[in-house]
């Protein structure tokens, strides 16, 4: 993965990611959120859980985004919320991409009945709306952020499995795979040595497009009370408090905007990465 990033930094050609305005916007937004998350204790004007103010204060110079039902400063909570939403969405993507890639690789390489069974299982997962399935799993495991992560991973892996299976099916037709077998490589070695380099690019692109989804699912579960538990400052659960107090517009609006900007930024980056990395598109631009 670091090799891929290095390649971007070196390439100054037309389809370099740094030439794409949307990518720059996305990267900037994520950089800001990351900065806020890391330096939250110094940036946040108040303790996110301190109940010092009055409840439902409208936005003002003292409380930029007002206060919530429990007298807490919303801007401070949003800054601390970035400490949950960003790392957990990245963790989710890493987990589901790893799990899905391994299952997909087995499916594609083994073929036959193994492949058929695994693909029917992914069909079942695709037949459910993701949030519904994640709710069911999270509810069954109990409301906890760790269980929400497990639930979302379970929902999210099939898309990677499908992608990797297709890539492997395609790549294993190549003569170089046969040549490698003729030289004495076992199937496992061929997968790791010969086929893995074909996967990292597309999987990385898909993963970057999925970070936004993961963040949405996580916020969604928290909104429903199945993710982060109070008093943790989590954007999804803050929106949920806003939904209860619908007439106090600032309670739900600002955390909602936080989710919006982060998801949008991740999608901008994913889209631009796809344009930059997709071998076909990239090749078409070069030739």
């Amino acid at each position, binding site marked *: 993965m670091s090799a891929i990033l290095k390649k971007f930094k070196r390439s100054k050609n037309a389809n370099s990611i740094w030439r794409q305005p949307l990518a720059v916007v996305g990267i900037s937004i994520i950089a800001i959120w990351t900065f806020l998350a890391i330096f939250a204790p110094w940036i946040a004007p108040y303790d996110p859980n301190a109940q010092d103010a009055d409840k439902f204060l409208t936005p003002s110079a003292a409380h930029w985004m007002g206060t919530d039902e429990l007298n807490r400063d919303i801007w401070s909570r949003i800054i601390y919320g970035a400490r949950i939403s960003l790392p957990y969405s990245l963790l989710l993507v890493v987990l589901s991409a790893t799990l899905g890639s391994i299952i997909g690789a087995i499916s594609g390489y083994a073929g036959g009945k193994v492949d058929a069974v695994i693909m029917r299982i992914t069909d079942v997962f695709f037949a459910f709306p993701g949030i519904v399935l994640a709710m069911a799993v999270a509810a069954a495991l109990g409301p906890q952020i760790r269980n929400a992560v497990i639930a979302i991973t379970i929902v999210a892996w099939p898309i990677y499995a499908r992608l990797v299976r297709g890539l492997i099916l395609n790549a294993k037709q*190549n*003569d*170089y795979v*046969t*040549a*490698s*077998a*003729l*030289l*004495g*490589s*076992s*199937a*496992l*070695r061929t997968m790791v*040595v*010969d086929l893995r*380099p*074909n996967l990292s690019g597309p999987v990385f692109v898909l993963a970057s497009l999925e970070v936004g989804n993961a963040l949405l699912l996580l916020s969604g579960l928290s909104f429903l009370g199945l993710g982060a538990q109070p008093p943790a400052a989590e954007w999804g659960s803050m929106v949920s408090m806003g939904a209860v107090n619908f007439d106090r517009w600032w309670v739900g609006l600002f955390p909602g905007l936080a989710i919006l900007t982060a998801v949008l930024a991740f999608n901008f980056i994913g889209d631009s990465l796809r344009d930059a990395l997709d071998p076909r598109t990239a090749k078409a631009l070069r030739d």
Partner: protein
Amino acid sequence: MKEILNLKNVAVEYDRHGRKVRAVAGVDLTLNSGEILGLVGESGCGKSTLGKAIVGILSPITGEIVFDGQKVKKLTRGKRPEHFRNLQMVFQDPYGSLNPRRKIGMQIADGLIVAGMSKKLALLKAEDLLEKVGLPRNAVGRFPHQFSGGQRQRISIARALAASPTAIIADEPISALDTSSQAQVANLLVNLVDEFDMGMVFISHDLSIVRRISDRVAVMYLGKIVEVGTVDQIWNNPSHPYTRALISAIPHADGTSFMPKDLPGDVPNPMSPPSGCRFHPRCPLAKAECASNEPELRKLADGRDVSCVLQTAGSQPVTITLN
């Protein structure tokens, strides 16, 4: 001269939507160390299928393939037995046969690493092999897209050489190259066969190249070998009507002595091959018995094998003239 490869009655079938297609229908063939055996025939006659069966990519439904004393088994997901790593293949497509995302040094070194050599030593050996095929030593660090088709084919050959092969199946190794690279790669193959005393099956439809580099030639038609002989025998005095037609189909620059002779009709569908001699519907010299009796390969007095009723085992070949 040592016999390195022996095929007895090898048949390979494909399954096409439930119907069996017998692409190779009973082939007997031998290959000796230090010789190049040209395998020629029209597209679709089963040359490549036979090549794939020899190395074990496809498994024959009947017959057996013996490489250096051991019967070839189909490639599995496990490691290929060490004995058979000396039986290598060079593929036609110089683009698909190298992994575009790996440095070529590592691709060549792979065979050595699998055999237990350290990575460092294997990479050094890969440099030697690159030199052997006429590429600079520093090419190890480059990727396949930095090379031309001819250079890639040499890299593929270097990769096969890493397994120190005693036999190589070259499946149309120069068909996809431009003319100047064709000559270079063909010369390289000839030199390597001499240097390492390996046997090579050179599958091609380019008769003039086969004539230049082969010691012996096997002519294939619709899944069967119709004639096997030395280059001289095949070219100067073909003893099978199909060989005669094939040889006379080579265009000559002077345009006078040989005019391409078209055979009547098309290659029959291998799903339902003709009865008797497979060539009889197109053969200008066919007799009544050809439609019912399938001729066996017979050895003639000059040492060649041919499957045609016009020839008698043990006698000198009868000269074949068409029309």
